[in-house]
């Protein structure tokens, strides 16, 4: 068989297993939980990568995540907003902070941009930590309910009713973000982002609006990350500043994207769906104390041995376009 056929068969089987598997094994709760969260982190990784595709690596996406989480929860508690609109509004708060980055960090590139984003992760964290009357400070907010049923018009999805429906919801969210991630690679806008990350000056003299395209990437990336933050609050049932405004959460999508392949539509997704279950299902039982070290190891191995990411193995060897 052609390697290309093998690749296709393998991909379709994996997709089929992810979709049908939960129906066949409804009792496999640990798997439903872990793969549901893997889908969640896949969405988070792709959201991060949409900005990275414009040539800017961020270390501060935890800011959008935390703002999205706190905004979603506080809008529900203080303004009695329904859950899903509040989560979307949380994404918008993240996007607003992202657009602020766009204005303030307009001239920054490379390591300077990364450091600035890292610093700007601390600002909302310190504010949330100290504004105790609103956010209850470092105590965090506990007792956040599970996600309620999602009414999509034609069908109502009982998202919080069980791990299986939660899994399907997170799978759907991942699929939605994948479509946007694909746009950031393959659409006309995707071509513009590619030109920008390869050579900004050449891109602008060829008619690419570098600032506009990059701002769109930043806004979308921040919005999706903010929505992820809001969902996270409901998945975990509690939030505290150190947990959601964390560098670890900011770096996680970076690791998954590098591991899976930053320039492939399914790269970050493959990274998340392989690495997170590997960590949670295989390594954690073996090494309950040090299993998270795998991420550090993986990123080093990735950089040394396949800097283009795992997805290049799943791709035919012809030219990318």
């Amino acid at each position, binding site marked *: 068989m052609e390697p290309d056929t093998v690749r296709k068969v393998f991909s379709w089987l994996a997709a089929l297993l992810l979709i049908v598997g939960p129906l066949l094994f409804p009792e496999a709760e640990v798997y439903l939980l872990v793969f549901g969260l893997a889908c969640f982190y896949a969405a988070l990784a792709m959201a991060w990568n949409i900005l990275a595709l414009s040539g800017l690596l961020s270390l501060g996406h935890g800011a959008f995540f935390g703002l999205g989480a706190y905004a979603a929860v506080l809008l529900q508690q203080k303004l009695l907003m329904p859950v899903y609109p509040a989560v979307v509004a949380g994404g918008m708060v993240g996007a607003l902070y992202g657009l602020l980055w766009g204005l303030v960090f307009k001239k920054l590139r490379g390591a300077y941009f990364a450091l600035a984003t890292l610093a700007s992760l601390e600002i909302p964290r310190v504010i949330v930590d100290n504004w105790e009357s609103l956010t209850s400070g470092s105590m965090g907010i506990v007792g956040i309910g599970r996600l309620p049923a999602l009414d999509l018009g034609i069908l109502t999805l009982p998202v919080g009713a069980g791990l299986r429906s939660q899994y399907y919801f997170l799978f759907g969210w991942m699929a939605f973000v994948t479509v946007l991630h694909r746009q950031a690679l393959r659409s*006309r806008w995707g*071509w*513009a982002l*590619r*030109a920008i990350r*390869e*050579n900004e*000056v*050449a*891109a*602008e*003299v*060829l*008619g*690419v*609006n*570098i*600032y506009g395209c990059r701002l769109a990437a930043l806004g979308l990336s921040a919005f999706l990350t903010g929505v992820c933050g809001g969902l996270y609050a409901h998945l975990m049932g509690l939030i505290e500043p150190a947990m959601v405004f964390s560098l670890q959460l900011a770096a996680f999508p970076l690791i998954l994207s590098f591991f899976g392949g930053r320039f492939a539509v399914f790269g970050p997704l493959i990274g998340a769906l392989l690495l997170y279950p590997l960590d949670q299902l295989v390594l954690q039982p073996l090494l309950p104390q040090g299993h998270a070290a795998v991420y550090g190891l993986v990123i080093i191995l990735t950089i040394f041995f396949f800097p283009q990411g795992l997805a290049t193995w799943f791709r035919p060897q012809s*030219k990318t*376009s």
Partner: protein
Amino acid sequence: MVPATEQNLLELRAIEVIWGPQRLLRNISLQVSPQEIIGIIGPNGAGKTTLMSVISGQVSPTSGKVFYQGQDITAWPPHRRCRAGIARTFQIPRPFADMTAWENVAIGIRFGRRRQSAGFLRDQALPYLELVGLTHKADTLGKDLTLSEQRRLEVARALATEPQLVLLDEVAAGLSPKMVRHVAALVEKLRQQGLTLLIIDHFLNLTLEVADRLVVLDRGEKIMEGPPQEIIRHPEVVGAYLGTRRPAKGPPTAGDSPASAERP
């Protein structure tokens, strides 16, 4: 203020560029008619590339105005100027390193003046590669091209934006006499298609033949402007090139250029 004249495709008015303690351009004014070919010459550091960057939008002048087709474009960003029909190449090539040659050209097709949304971009890119003799390299990555091929790719990419005004920065530098004749033929052909060209030509091996006018810059000032044959005989020009700061490799006296035969 005097309105820009419609007959000029491009007009620079009293352009000054001050960069820290340096004055890179001083009081430069220039008028360019449609379908003109203008050579910009001058010693190293004269401000030739800076002048080009003021026109293409990478450098904002400290004072002065740029008019294009009668519109004041001084505040326009580079991509907007490109879409209005101004294209440029870079002396040090800036290819999209991980794109193939045809994809490099496709960026110009997609985002330039035509703003084409989709279609068979590879087929549309090939004619531009053919113009510069790179058809056989269409599927080679930008980073795998030789320096001379990357220079030619710059030209193909610029033309793919369907410009009206093309700024060429040292396209003929380091080329063999045979290649220079190719470039000269291409430049003539573009003019006949209605394009206007501004060519930086430090070694004078291209513009002496094809230019209608030469503009001589020295230390940021326009010291002279006129038909090539008059310009190169002028003592002040000879002084600017040969005078105080003669570079080791030698100005336009090199025996390998067609220009050398014409020099006094």
